[in-house]
């Protein structure tokens, strides 16, 4: 690393990027090898040593206390006290530091704002300011753009550039080739814990992807035009609250027809999760109706919805999709364990479960040491394949796939996409929810964009991605003008509340 350099660390799922950086930040101890800072070997016993050596890290999940103010969060861990033994916290000084740093690097944050009121992009900025107040020379950003809107990402890139201009070095961990090309001075690609190459940002996207995965990958989805049939899922006027009793879905109307893929795009936290959970019977419906092939299914229990021919690939496989301690075979029957041939009365039929598992593992190309291996030992892609295999192994009317390829390696993405399209082609209605716009565009025959609990537009897959991007930020092209005049303070989902009007107006200029 050179001073004033932005170094991108690029790598596939589980390639060891995060581990490497955690070693650098002193969270893990290296088994072998050493770290050199200014030519001197460095022995890190913990994060405090790393901070002492001028290394700061912004984690993928922010390490902020939601109910504290920005200033309080920033002094956390390095509390300055005054008044001797009485030990009053020196809030004023913390506030001054925040203001100082944010002015010096042009990172606007209000030191008295409470973290939980801030949008994600600003929270991240607080993390960066926090690192900077510790006088770091090297800043590690672990997948910083994963939770940001396109506009927020742009702002982050601007911040990174100004930090670079101030002589700070930045390690930028990501898997987003576009960002890497936009900002990095040097790119190191890691695969299976080894550096496989260093590239310059001029390298083409395909080259970088190939370097990461180790083979040439196809990044588009092959499919024929859809032949939509009867409506299968009909949602009308749906209202659903999230776990905090805050309105998450606010009057959604949707129709998914047999033989088509409806893509639901949107920045995370705009009600997509609650929408599908309501359809699955996992979340109470407060108003509106949901029908499946003519039957009202709102108020049904999840088991009944599943039995009615709905396949569900949950958004978060490790929380909702799989029981990690269970074997692959057991996970493959997680929602049909009590149906013949797998269960008869009170007894399970281990032989039938094993036989079916063997078949599915082969059919869906699940790479596992055995059907008895705990599913938690599989890679993310193979775990996802287990879920997909489970859901597609029974006749379906409707398939709901949420983030079907999140954290999945490229090979598995291709496979899962082709399975989804295959399911569409045999006449199943498919609803794909993804915050990955490319995935939605690639799979969907129609795209519904969700923003603050509403569908703010349904567009075709040929719509320019800029337009969809703006919709995702809550700006429909014609509504942009009026939105500018009444800048409503956000009462919607926390990820996109309040001062988010900043990116809004910024993007409006582009429009």
């Amino acid at each position, binding site marked *: 690393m050179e001073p004033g350099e932005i170094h991108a660390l*690029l790598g*596939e799922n*589980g*390639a*060891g*990027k*995060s*581990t490497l950086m*955690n070693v650098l930040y002193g*969270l893990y101890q290296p088994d072998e090898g050493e770290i050199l800072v200014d030519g001197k070997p460095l022995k890190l016993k913990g994060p405090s040593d790393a901070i002492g050596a001028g290394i700061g890290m912004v984690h993928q999940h922010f390490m902020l206390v939601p109910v504290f103010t920005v200033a309080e969060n920033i002094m956390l861990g390095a509390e300055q006290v005054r008044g001797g033994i009485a030990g009053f916290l020196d809030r004023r000084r913390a506030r001054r530091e925040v203001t100082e740093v944010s002015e010096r690097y042009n990172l606007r944050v209000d030191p008295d704002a409470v973290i939980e009121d801030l949008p994600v992009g600003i929270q991240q900025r607080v993390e960066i300011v926090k690192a900077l107040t510790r006088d770091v020379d090297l800043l590690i950003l672990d997948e910083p753009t*994963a*939770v940001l809107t*396109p506009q927020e*990402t742009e702002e982050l890139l601007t911040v990174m550039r100004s930090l670079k201009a101030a002589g700070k070095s930045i390690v930028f961990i990501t*898997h*987003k080739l*576009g960002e890497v090309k936009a900002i990095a001075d040097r790119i190191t690609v890691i695969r299976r814990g080894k550096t496989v190459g260093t590239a310059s940002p001029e390298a083409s996207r395909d080259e970088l*992807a190939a370097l990461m*995965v180790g083979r040439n990958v196809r*990044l*588009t989805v092959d499919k024929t035009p859809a032949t939509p049939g009867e409506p299968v899922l009909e949602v009308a006027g749906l209202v659903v609250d999230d776990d905090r009793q805050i309105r998450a879905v606010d009057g959604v109307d949707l129709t998914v027809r047999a033989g088509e893929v409806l893509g639901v795009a949107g920045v995370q936290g705009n009600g997509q999760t609650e929408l599908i959970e309501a359809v699955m019977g*996992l979340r109470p419906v407060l108003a509106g109706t949901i029908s499946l092939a003519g039957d009202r299914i709102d108020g049904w*229990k*999840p*088991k009944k919805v*599943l039995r009615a021919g709905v396949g569900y690939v949950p958004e*978060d496989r*490790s*929380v*909702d*999709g*799989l*029981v*990690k301690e*269970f*074997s692959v075979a*057991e996970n493959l029957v997680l*929602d049909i*364990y009590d149906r013949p041939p797998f*269960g008869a009365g*009170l007894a*399970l039929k*281990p032989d039938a479960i094993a036989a079916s598992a063997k078949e599915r593992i082969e059919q869906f190309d699940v790479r596992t040491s055995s059907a*008895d291996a*705990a599913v*938690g*030992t599989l890679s993310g892609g193979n775990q996802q394949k287990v879920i997909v295999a489970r859901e597609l192994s029974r006749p379906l009317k409707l398939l709901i796939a949420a983030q079907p390829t999140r954290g999945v*390696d*490229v090979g598995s*993405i291709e496979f899962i996409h082709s399975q989804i399209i295959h399911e569409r082609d045999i006449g199943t209605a498919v609803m794909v929810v*993804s*915050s*990955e*716009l*490319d*995935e939605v565009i690639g799979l969907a025959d129609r795209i519904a964009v969700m923003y603050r609990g509403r569908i703010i537009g349904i567009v075709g897959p040929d719509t320019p*991605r*800029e337009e*969809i991007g703006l919709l*995702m930020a809550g700006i429909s092209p014609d509504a942009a003008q009026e939105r500018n005049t009444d800048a409503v303070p956000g009462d919607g989902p926390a990820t996109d509340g309040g001062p988010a009007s900043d990116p809004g107006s910024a993007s409006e200029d582009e429009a």
Partner: protein
Amino acid sequence: MTNPPTPQSGSPDKEPASEAQAAQNALGNTERAEVATEPDRSVAKPGPEPEPKPSLGRLFLDNLWAANTFTVTLLSLVLAIVVGAVLMIISDPEVLSTYSYITSRPSDAINSSWTLVSEAYANLFKGSVFDPEAFSGWLDGANGWQAVLAPISETLTYAAPLVFTGLSVALAFRGGLFNIGAQGQATIGVIMAALAGFLLPLPPGLHLLVAVLAGALGGAIWGFIPGILKARAGAHEVINTIMLNYVATYFLTWLIVQNGVQDPNRTDAISKAVDTSAQLPRLLGDNLRVHAGILLAVLATWAVAWLLNRSTLGFELRAVGANPDAARTAGISVTRTYILIMVFAGILAGLGGSNMVLGSTASALTPLVVAQIGFDGILVALLGRVKPWGVLLAALLFGALQAGGNRMQSYSGISLELVTVLQALIVIFIAAPALVKAIFQLRAARAARLQTSLAKGW
């Protein structure tokens, strides 16, 4: 102790192959790198994959299984015995006095310590497993064969109720619930069994069956209450089961002195005796205390193992215990499962309670008739690593300690409380595998520590 011969494979019973692997799994969780798709203009980013927040119980279970190999269990025993020996020495004034002149005559201190400790542990063994003197006495015709089997008989008698309560705690634990209420469930079980035993005039055989079932029913009721409170109101089962323990204990104390329950010929707190027709038959004649309860215990162990690993209900139970979110998403009713778990746990604990009054330990209700079997059940479950056959073995060990402790007290003058201390020490060492490994310099100690620190989440 050997690894319990669990009859299933491919179940989550499997522990990670090695400590290293366990640590690696933990490390793997922290990696959430993702792969490149085509991020053309990088419009929308996939959110990070949030760490599943495992429940406290799950973490504890993971650590228990991942870090606890057979070696650790064995070494924990050894450590507890060593610490026990030290306690014996310092609690015996005579032996301790030899240490005041240890520099001039070390042999005194060493010899007297050795004599004390070795005799105490020898008596522990003779009282619980096998007494060579009784054996030679039998060969010489000085005593009958019963004397040879007496230690085993005692061990099995003490072990039987612990198997039930241990299974109760273990079963709930597998379903993600801490059943601290085995004591209360056993107490209600003992009350119901005793009432059925001396109030109902039934023919032999049927009477016993009814009494045993009454005990199970009592436990089931006492398990159902925290179960439904948890499922419907979200009330934490730990608090509720602890509170219900008090309710049960004081209910028993009150009940014993009521008319129709108290023994009319006695003024102290003791109930009428259970009819002989409702007592569990003794297996080896009237001179040996071992009764059919131990057979029921083995049967229950088998039943719980089957339930957990081979039944749809067990599948639900394990899924809910391991990941309630995924279970719910897959259509399993988590609330129903919680209630069922507590009812089953209650049944088992209630059966353990029945053992205390229908077996040979006691035949009438007294305030202390249940002893500590509910709380010991927690220890047994942990020692048995919450697996059915492991629980059976752990209960046998605890039973042996109890039985041997009696002899140790009468022959060596070591107080019975030392046995309790030994039991507690064993479990502490088991629950703190990192400590045992550090003491014995086992290589994987660091991995276990890493895991606990990761468990807290940084």
